[in-house]
């Protein structure tokens, strides 16, 4: 039982990272009905920005400024940088194709993804890069009722859940959130209602990408290492989580992410690490067979 609960906790921590990234896929799909394949790489760039700030502020394992301040800088730079990167990608690679064949932006998205990976590999580092997490966050191991988790794992979970709740409130409780939902429902009608659709799309890309940037910060602090290829696998997993939850649905992405993390952890822990992905994607197929729209459906977009 102790091991089961421990694996559950392991899964929730990994799953909260999936969920943060899944939110980005789902937000953008909800508004534009397009798969932003570059999203996993925006997360990777965010992680590298955080690692860069950490490298500037931490020397010989000692932070030059108070650790909390250093982490705050990392968050601002990573979220801001990733956010603007997302907006830039939309402007350059997706907006010109908004009325083109549906496959066109998918292809440019894959192009952007490869570009970002190669750019970081060539210009930043082909080898994994250290994030000096020991100088930035406590390295304590938290024990409760026979379950252990590093502080950073708890941090990952708490921050991710808090951001999800905040995003949910933003989309469902604010005026701008209504504009987003209106745009998702019917872009043309939203234009007629006086909604600046372009602005909604830009803000959506910024939000989605900034969340990925935050994911990058948390990843660096928890795992202590980042590399140019990290966004690929995590991006695919997060996309899977978004589909399980019902792509386009914010709460679905959160639940899908956590569920995927827990599934992976339990399968890896009790069945086989080798067949982990086999079972995970088998699960995806089963979910889609029973509920093609995903667990939570698509209340934000009922077109198509």
């Amino acid at each position, binding site marked *: 039982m102790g091991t089961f609960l421990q694996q559950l906790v392991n899964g929730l921590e990994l799953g909260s990272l999936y969920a943060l990234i899944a939110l980005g896929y789902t937000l953008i799909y909800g508004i534009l009905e397009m798969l932003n394949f570059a999203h996993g790489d925006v997360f990777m760039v965010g992680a590298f920005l955080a690692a860069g700030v950490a490298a500037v502020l931490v020397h010989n394992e000692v932070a030059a400024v108070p650790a909390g301040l250093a982490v705050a800088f990392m968050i601002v730079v990573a979220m801001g940088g990733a956010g603007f990167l997302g907006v830039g990608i939309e402007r350059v690679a997706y907006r010109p194709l908004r009325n083109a064949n549906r496959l066109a932006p998918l292809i440019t998205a894959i192009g952007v993804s490869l570009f970002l990976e190669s750019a970081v590999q060539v210009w930043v580092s082909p080898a994994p890069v250290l994030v000096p997490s020991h100088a930035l966050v406590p390295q304590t191991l938290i024990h409760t009722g026979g379950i252990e988790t590093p502080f950073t794992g708890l941090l990952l979970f708490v921050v991710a859940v808090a951001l999800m709740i905040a995003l949910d409130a933003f989309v469902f409780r604010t005026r701008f959130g209504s504009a987003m939902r209106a745009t998702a429902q019917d872009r043309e009608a939203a234009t007629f209602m006086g909604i600046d659709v372009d602005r909604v799309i830009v803000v959506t890309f910024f939000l989605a990408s900034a969340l990925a940037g935050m994911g990058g910060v948390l990843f660096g602090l928890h795992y202590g290492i980042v590399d140019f290829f990290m966004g690929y696998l995590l991006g695919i997993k997060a996309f899977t989580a978004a589909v399980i939850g019902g792509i386009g649905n914010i709460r679905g992405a959160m639940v899908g992410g956590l569920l995927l993390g827990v599934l992976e*952890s339990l399968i890896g822990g009790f069945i086989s690490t080798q067949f982990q992905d086999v079972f995970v994607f088998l699960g995806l197929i089963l979910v889609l067979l029973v509920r093609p729209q995903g667990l939570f459906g698509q209340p934000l977009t009922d077109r198509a």
Partner: protein
Amino acid sequence: MASVGLAACGSSTTGTAPSKPDKVQIAAEGPFTGDQASIGAGALQAIKLAVNDFNKAGGVNGTQVQLLIWDDQHNAQTAQTLQSQGIADPTVLGIVGPMNSGVVLGSVQGLQAGTPPLPFVSESASNVKVTDSGWSVAHRVNARDDAQGPADGKFMIDQGAHKVYVMDAQSDYSTALADQTEKYLKDHSITTKRDSVKAGTKDFATIITKIQSFGADWVYFADEGPEAAPFVSQMKSHGLTIGQNIQFLGTDGEEDSSIITTSQGAYVGAYATNITADPAGVSGSAAAAYVTAFKAAYGADSVSKAGPFYGSAYEAAQTLLQAIKNSPVNNGKISRTDVISHLASDTFNTIFGSVKFNSKGDVTGGGIYVYQAKGTEMVVLKQVSG
């Protein structure tokens, strides 16, 4: 054969000087960028140095050897594409590399099918199939899995291991090696549990929980390297401290001091075995002179960043270049068929002493060395065998 070469050159030049080939190329192949650049980059530096040194000493009868750089990024398909240029060009006489067993096994048939076949000397591919499959093109200077696995198993038993968590990274190299080690441990009544991680894995929490509930006193991880730092770093943050409540033995790719830095010190105390000698860790004036030359070429801290194969890469390049030099020149051309027969028959002078390949293409008496992470360095402890 030599007389044929001399007769051919007699028409164009006078005297008895050895015939000069028109063009000689060799290729360096390995993961020079990408996730395994920490293994490949140092090996490439060594090969460049070997070619430079060889050219300074006169090259092949006065012809400078040109080095092609084939960065296969640990991918057999990329390797095939790169190799196809070499197979088509008869002046490409051999390859130093490929470094990864999986790349060799995925591309060797193409090399063997070339006309003539394109030989290679690997500095690090250890899977037994590399030389056990009867390919005349296949050579390597490093020791094999079936020597390393038992040596690794014996080392852990000698250190007092009772329960060993054996892991591989789902590659031709790591799976075969972990199999060998696990078999040795089981044959010696050690309790083992086997697990496997995908290359690129960053989250090890699930596996660490399994290690804890299994109650392992040793973790054995056959891996090319990239997974080690996040793994040991998370072991520590989950309460498994190497050298205190757990011991860790890694393999070649993990004989890499950069893991100490990228794991923020969690790797200190870990052991790793290497299938090649570290020139800085063995006796012999040639090896010492090489270390000095390497530092002079690439900087004082270059050796500690060069990864596990900067010695064997130089050694492999030396054997290939000498085999080429020993081959006859006909009408300005050297045939790859002759290079292959000289690789098989000749004895070569290298930084590690004289080297000869057996009929399979393995070196006789390739050693296994144990290293330990101390401070910021991997320090050689001793030579071991199974």
